[in-house]
């Protein structure tokens, strides 16, 4: 690990962005947001490109914060977190370019909340102190809930409540587990610490049973991902949230759960994790199939995308639960690819929604003729989502299945069915809104300008990594 003083830039930049947005005129909020998020992305790329991630290397920075309570601000950018940080930078840039009601109504608040969200997410991805991680993990809720509440649609209040309470329930049990862990480490070493490296030593001690703490962590992250049966909050929130919030949730917040499994549960509770592996694998496989079936029978396109997200995340979890380094790597690959794919799908879907304002989602049809370029892009996105070979998702899902097969053949085969079901619902989705009888012809233009460039860039990345995953894998391989 290399000591590096630049890591705080990844936190300070969004925090400053959040504060300064209140001084920017309302009309130029979008420009400002794009500028800051681009700067953020560039900083991330710059820092990452100067680090050497091979053989457990990376960057580290420690800042004193609350040493009385055993809390320090310890940041670590290693081969796990770097991809999540970069994904967060990139997706945020994409999201903030999206035009919509959020830049018309209370635009300053929106920009400020967005950057606060990025700040909290980056803190969660970087911190190796469990309490700081918890703080950031909770802090993510505040902007998320406000976004859904202020810019969301109809039944937002109920959905937000369910979302918050379920997540809060999980995470507060995680907090108690963190306390207990630090108490155990206090008993053992006489030193009150909540640092990951110190607490990791506990699992080596066979006298201590950590299964209850494991359950606390598991609930927190399984609700966030979400893993069946904790997915109850997801559909309503995704559907009612404004598109930026939906993209953030599906591409990044769910990854926060995945990241938690990789960064914290793995190292802290490996013996218990192995014990429960069978159950967890079965849950992941069931998530894949169950969500796929739900998606197939779903009429509302946005809910369909929400369910497809659960299905894909089941795959990611399958990779994580295979408990091998290679499986973990493939889970990270799939996380990033799913982040990009779901971002582009929701982005395009929002463009469609804007063009069809006033028409119920259930009645979308026959739009491909009207917006040919948009629907070509959407088609590529759909293909990427159903993991066509040559797209990034294929690489991820293939690797996951490859590494999960030796652990549990049955679960892997069952998940394989999920891929087939995936093409059923994704093609159905495309067919329903793209083809068929077009009811009303509106005069809105096809996709153009900034939107087109952004979508093309994401699709290019998805296809590029589909053919050239080695660059990506080189960086993750040595976790």
């Amino acid at each position, binding site marked *: 690990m290399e000591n590096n003083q630049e890591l705080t830039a990844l936190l300070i930049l969004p925090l400053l962005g959040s504060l300064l947005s209140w001084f920017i005129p309302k009309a130029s909020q979008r420009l400002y947001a794009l500028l800051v998020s681009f700067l953020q992305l560039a900083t991330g790329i710059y820092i990452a490109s100067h680090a050497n991630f091979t053989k457990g290397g990376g960057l580290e920075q420690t800042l004193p914060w609350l040493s*009385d309570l055993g809390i320090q601000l310890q940041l670590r950018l290693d081969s796990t977190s770097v991809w999540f940080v970069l994904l967060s930078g990139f997706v945020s840039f994409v999201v903030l370019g999206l035009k919509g009601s959020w830049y018309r109504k209370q635009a300053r608040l929106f920009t400020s909340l967005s950057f606060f969200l990025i700040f909290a997410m980056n803190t969660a991805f970087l911190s190796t102190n469990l309490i700081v991680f918890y703080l950031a993990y909770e802090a993510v809720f505040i902007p998320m809930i406000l976004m859904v509440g202020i810019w969301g649609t109809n039944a937002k209040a109920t959905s937000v409540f369910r979302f918050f309470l379920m997540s809060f329930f999980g995470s507060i049990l995680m907090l108690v587990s963190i306390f207990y862990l630090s*108490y155990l480490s206090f008993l053992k070493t006489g030193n009150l610490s909540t640092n990951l490296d110190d607490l990791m030593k506990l699992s080596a001690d066979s006298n201590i049973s950590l299964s209850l703490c494991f359950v606390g962590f598991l609930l927190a992250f399984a609700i966030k991902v979400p893993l069946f049966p904790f997915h109850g909050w997801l559909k309503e929130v995704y559907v009612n949230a404004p598109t930026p919030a939906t993209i953030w949730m599906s591409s990044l917040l769910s990854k926060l759960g995945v990241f938690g499994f990789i960064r914290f549960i793995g190292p802290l509770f490996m013996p218990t994790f192995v014990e429960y592996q069978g159950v967890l694998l079965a849950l992941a496989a069931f998530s894949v199939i169950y969500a796929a079936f739900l998606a197939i029978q779903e009429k509302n396109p946005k809910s369909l995308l929400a369910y497809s997200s659960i299905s894909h995340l089941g795959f990611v979890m399958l990779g994580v639960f295979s408990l091998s380094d290679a499986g973990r790597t493939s889970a990270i690959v799939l996380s990033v690819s799913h982040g990009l794919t779901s971002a582009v799908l929701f982005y395009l879907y929002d463009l469609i929604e804007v063009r069809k304002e006033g028409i119920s989602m259930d009645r979308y049809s026959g739009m491909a003729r009207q917006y040919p370029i948009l629907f070509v892009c959407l088609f590529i996105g759909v293909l990427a989502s159903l993991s066509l070979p040559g797209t990034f998702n294929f690489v991820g899902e293939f690797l996951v299945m490859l590494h999960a097969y030796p652990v549990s053949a049955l679960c892997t085969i069952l998940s394989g069915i999920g891929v087939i079901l995936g093409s059923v619902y994704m093609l159905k989705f495309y067919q329903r809104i793209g083809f068929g009888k077009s009811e009303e012809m509106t005069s809105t233009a096809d996709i153009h300008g900034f939107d087109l460039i952004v979508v093309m860039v994401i699709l290019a990345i998805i296809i590029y990594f589909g053919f050239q995953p080695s660059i990506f894998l080189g960086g993750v391989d040595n976790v």
Partner: protein
Amino acid sequence: MFDLANLALLGPWLVLSLGIMATMLVSSIRIETRLPAKIVTIITLVLVMITSIGLFSEGTKTVLNGYIEISKLSCMTLFFMSGISLMFVVGSGGYLNKEKIHISDYYNLLLLMVFGASILVSAKDLFVMFIALEVMSLPAYALVGFRRNDSRSNEAAIKYFILGGALGAIFLMGTSFIFGASGSTQLAQIFEWSKGYNGDLLLFVVGHLLVLFAFLFKVAAAPFHFWKPDVYEGAPVSVTGLMATVITTAAFVVLVRLFHLVDFQSTTFAPYLESLKQLIRVVAVMSLVGGSTVLILQKNLKRMLAYSSINHTGYLLLGLLGTLSKPDQIYSIWFYLAGYSIITCGLFLMLSQSTTTNDQGLELVDLTGLMKKNPYFATVLSIFFLSMVGMPFTVGFFTKYTVFMSSISAGEVGFVVIAAICAVIGAYGYLRPIALMVMRDPDPSSASFVGTKFNQAMIIILAALCIILGIFPQALIQLTKGLELIP
């Protein structure tokens, strides 16, 4: 033994007494002229704050034959209580005018109450405690019934008075039993007695439990809580706020003192400690579960805050449970009290500024759409409610953190899990008003907030404190870690 040096040690109390006399004189001139009384009160409270800071460096001393203790703990509590009272005095003028109860007697009674509370936190003798309790409570009864034309205010005052009187009697009875067992009413002597005692415990235990019950009543831990919602609802908002902060703080400090009345290291009392812990467990769980579940059913904001304070008492008892086996964790209680008082003070100052057409007081639905109508108030109110939830980056997070840590370090993991689940239930209750404010459009019947300049200044200070202490709590933690409980 009396000399002038001791007189200087009694500075805060002397200042308070002078202030009380001055306000009394001023109010005798003409009851409607409240400005002089207000100014005298403000000056008195500021002087109390200054003198108690001055005493802070004195170390631990006892004056008046060991009846009054001057320690870091008592000075800090005194400073804190007078600070909170000052906030209320400065911030609630507009409310008192609106309710037409802004007369100089209000300030006189308020100072008397603070006086009683200040003796209570530094009393080292059970009889002094009783007198201080009455000095604190009597003005409080009068203040609760200050809205003379409102039947609910009268009801609250009567209820509070009768129950308060009863608990005073219970306390005295307990004192007499303890005196019978130990031969003293001074805390230090009782502690000494307990070290060498190895006889029958029954008399002492009965007395101790009675004394404890009296104060569990005062802090309204379930099942001793039933007076609280009615009193909170009936009392004027600023008085409710004072009760929730000053009286709760004073009563809890005494409760902690009373729990540490005897030396639990001695073999005679070690088994008793276990049963005491069992008692706290029961009371804490009842307060946590009862407070949080009933909290989410409330429609009236003041009643909701009453149940919330019962819930918070549960957390405080959880911290206390930890300190009984780990005395070094006692700072968690002081820290919690400080944080909770700051949040509560802010909330009640906010509530005092609402105008609602509803004569039942401010209901939750009155907050509908406040974010659009009055973004400033809605934001600040959200900060306070989020602090109550224990959201990160607010002081509420670290208050919960310290008490959870305290009882985890005593091995009470199961209870912390219960408390954590109650925190989630409570979170629903606190988030409901936020959801109403932020996610709905205002309707014409909803309340509006019109704060005076002073009120707004106080609220902004408190909201800023909530957030600053939520990010940099070190200073307060360090301070509270220095506050030892001297037997």
